[in-house]
């Protein structure tokens, strides 16, 4: 049986991708950002997921205003990086997991989430930047990826509650897949930022911190945040944080916060990052102790 073992949330600021591509990661401004993901990469290297489901949004790359799917699940065998105006990012093509994606689509549609199925799609920085932050810059990505593109560009995006419930439906779908797979779910975007209009540059650390705290403690509270409140408090584009709730909904009710990082700014944005693990109910004896040890090492920075 497949299972979701952990969730990762991370901002997906395009300038982070540009800093990687232009080899600026050692510059003080960027080092402050990238150093916050060193432990995360160690955690990911130890966790070794078989599949990553990456919840992200497209930024006028694969979808223009011609059609705007609210939830679009990538069911293709591969997803090339999109040309966002400067040529495609120099990252490997992402391999999909068409079998699991097909299974998820069928399961969640019957659970009343009317997904758009996408069999050909390029993916932009919304997906590739978090991949770099968690997996580094390998010649090939270490695991296949199922992209889930969420509309957060055209108002209104799906509500936080809807996103959370979709996460639950995805968990149910994954758990009914017969192959033995460890799945990690990414929620990307955010945290507080506004890049449009005279109020651009808005950052709300207090809101972001409360959001991070409640992601572990009381995610249901987060599902009650209205769109107006996201936009007012976390900036017009801060509404992207609804995508984190799909990740959270896909996890168990009780999770352990393994790691957290927050810094301001990257370009116009507050960078937030958190790793949440499901408690290992199935793991026994040795495996369980090893897992606990590796978690502690990550926490201590070992």
């Amino acid at each position, binding site marked *: 049986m497949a299972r979701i073992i952990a969730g990762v949330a991370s901002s997906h600021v*395009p*300038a982070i991708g540009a800093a990687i591509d232009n080899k600026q990661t050692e510059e003080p401004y960027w080092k402050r950002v990238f150093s916050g993901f060193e432990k995360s990469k160690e955690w990911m290297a130890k966790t070794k997921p078989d599949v990553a489901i990456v919840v992200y949004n497209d*930024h*006028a790359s694969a979808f*223009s*205003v*011609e059609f705007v799917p609210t939830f679009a699940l990538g069911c293709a065998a591969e997803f090339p990086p999109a*040309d*966002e*105006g*400067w040529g495609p990012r120099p990252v490997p093509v992402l391999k999909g997991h068409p079998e699991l994606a097909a299974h998820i689509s069928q399961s969640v549609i019957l659970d009343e989430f009317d997904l758009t199925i996408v069999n050909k799609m390029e993916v932009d920085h919304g997906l590739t930047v978090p991949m770099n932050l968690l997996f580094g810059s390998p010649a090939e990505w270490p695991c296949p990826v199922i992209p889930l593109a969420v509309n957060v*560009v*055209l*108002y*209104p995006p799906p509500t936080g509650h809807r996103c959370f419930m979709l996460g639950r439906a995805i968990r149910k779908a994954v758990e009914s897949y017969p192959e033995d797979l460890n799945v990690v779910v990414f929620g990307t975007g955010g945290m*507080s930022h*506004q*890049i*449009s*209009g*005279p*109020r*651009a*540059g*808005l*950052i*709300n*650390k*207090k*809101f972001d911190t*409360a*959001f991070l705290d*409640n992601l572990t403690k009381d995610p249901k*509270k*987060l599902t*009650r*945040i209205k*769109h*107006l*409140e996201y*936009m*007012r*408090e976390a900036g*017009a*584009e801060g509404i992207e944080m609804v995508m984190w709730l799909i990740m959270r909904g896909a996890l168990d009710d009780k999770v352990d916060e393994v790691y957290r990082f927050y810094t*301001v*700014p990257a*370009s*116009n944005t*507050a960078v937030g990052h958190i790793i949440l693990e499901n408690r290992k109910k199935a793991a026994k004896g040795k495996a369980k102790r090893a897992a606990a040890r590796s978690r502690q090492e990550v926490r201590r920075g070992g």
Partner: protein
Amino acid sequence: MARAQNDYDDIPGTFVFDAERSRQGYGINMFCMSLMKDDNRKAFRANEAEYLKKFKLTPEQTEAILKRDYNRMLELGGNIYFTAKLGATDGHSFRHLAAVMTGSTQDDYAKMMLDGGRSVEGNRSRSGKGAIGSALGEQGRPKAAKKAAKAKPAKSKGVKSKAAKAAKSKSKAKR
């Protein structure tokens, strides 16, 4: 045609890209999308006004594009992820455009971001009715304050539209 009033019109300095703006700004956004192709960028640079004739744009929209008035483009239905492609064609980053839209110099904007960004305090609401703080930030507040906070938005409709009008005439004055 007057725009229907929405609760989010009370957020200052913000043009929410909603269904109405998306309808109105389809031409702006499709024009911006066309700039993803190098041939189109060249054609646009060679004769901007001529190139824009290929798209369904109102005279106001055409003027906003030619003048690179990014706030006006948003007001007329452009979306930042699309208008940023026009910015990229001119060689500008998101952060550069953000500084332009806020009316700051590049240095001042960069400094504001390094100092922690623009504070939400004083930037929540045009009418003042929405300046209450979030459900998340309210955790420590007494129940009575919470109740008052809940009751307020319902009453504020008239005030909001007045505030929106005031803001509109302000932005006109700027232009």
